[in-house]
């Protein structure tokens, strides 16, 4: 039977990441060793203070290589991404790095619902987010 006990949480001090960390630390079924990845010079998640099973790593995902990420992901069972905005692009190298060092499970930052926007009198659907250049859906 598979058991996951070490978790890397990216975006741990964001709105969603903070909630996930609280739930990990409050889990009654088992305990987790959590490595929290947050941007440099940003506040640590409130629930992470002075806990021996929580490790904070400040990391600039735009400047960190896949190899460097691999080094800090060694021994991790699960990567959970709670990234948002421009940081989402880093998920490519996070997953590549995780795969290189044998991470067993990957949770991409989804946590929502995809909405197809349909314009009046237009047979195509459009995926969110709506920006100046809207890519057509399937």
């Amino acid at each position, binding site marked *: 039977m598979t058991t*996951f006990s070490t978790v890397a949480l990216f975006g741990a001090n964001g*709105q969603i990441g903070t909630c996930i960390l609280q739930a990990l630390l409050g*889990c009654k079924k088992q305990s987790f060793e959590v490595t929290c990845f947050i941007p440099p010079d940003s506040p640590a998640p409130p629930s992470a203070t002075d806990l021996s099973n929580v490790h904070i790593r400040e990391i600039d995902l735009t400047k960190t290589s896949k190899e460097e990420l691999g080094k800090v992901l060694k021994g991790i069972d699960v990567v959970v991404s709670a990234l948002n905005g421009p940081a989402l692009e880093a998920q490519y190298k996070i*997953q590549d790095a995780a795969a290189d060092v044998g991470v*067993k*499970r*990957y949770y991409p*930052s989804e946590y929502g619902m995809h909405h197809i926007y349909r314009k009046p009198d237009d047979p195509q659907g459009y995926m969110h987010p709506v920006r100046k250049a809207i890519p057509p859906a399937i």
Partner: protein
Amino acid sequence: MKSRLNEHAILHPAIESGAMSYTVIGCGDYYNQDREKVWCPWTQTDVEEYNIHIIGSADAKADFTHLDDFAAYLVASLCEPEKSHNAHLNFPSDTISHAEIASLLGRYSGKPVHKEVYGLEDMHKIIADPKQAPKELSEGSAFPVDFWFLVKGCQGQDRFRWAPGQRHNHLFPEVEVTTFEKYFQKKFGKKE
């Protein structure tokens, strides 16, 4: 962007080879974001009255998720990895219309609740040109206003719901859901 990233994630060579597995969790609209005065007006307490902004039908039901419920669900999926192995799971806390939310909010807060309903034509107009959005909607949110119109418009079109078979709450029954009524009871006190 998330759609593209998810596609890449689940088709990754490590997933294909079986060395790594994935879990994708979908949710409803997060309804307890205290920072979002426009998206979640009911989170505010320092107000005399509430304005709920609706696009399309106020009676259309939509899926909503409480942030803490979602986090508990994600952790439950970690505790039982077999159930979440290479899985796309969806987890709403409540399926409810804005008219029902307004009614519950009025009942539990004891304050007037106004429903400001926009037509779907407003959604199309704002998505085409976000600058035309009312100031009260375009300010005070971490999200772009056109995205707000898109999501609320889908809700008001009765399209913001997972279909039966697409909801996976049952996989982790120990995760209790916080419905709007439970949320309001906790926030404002229970009313019989």
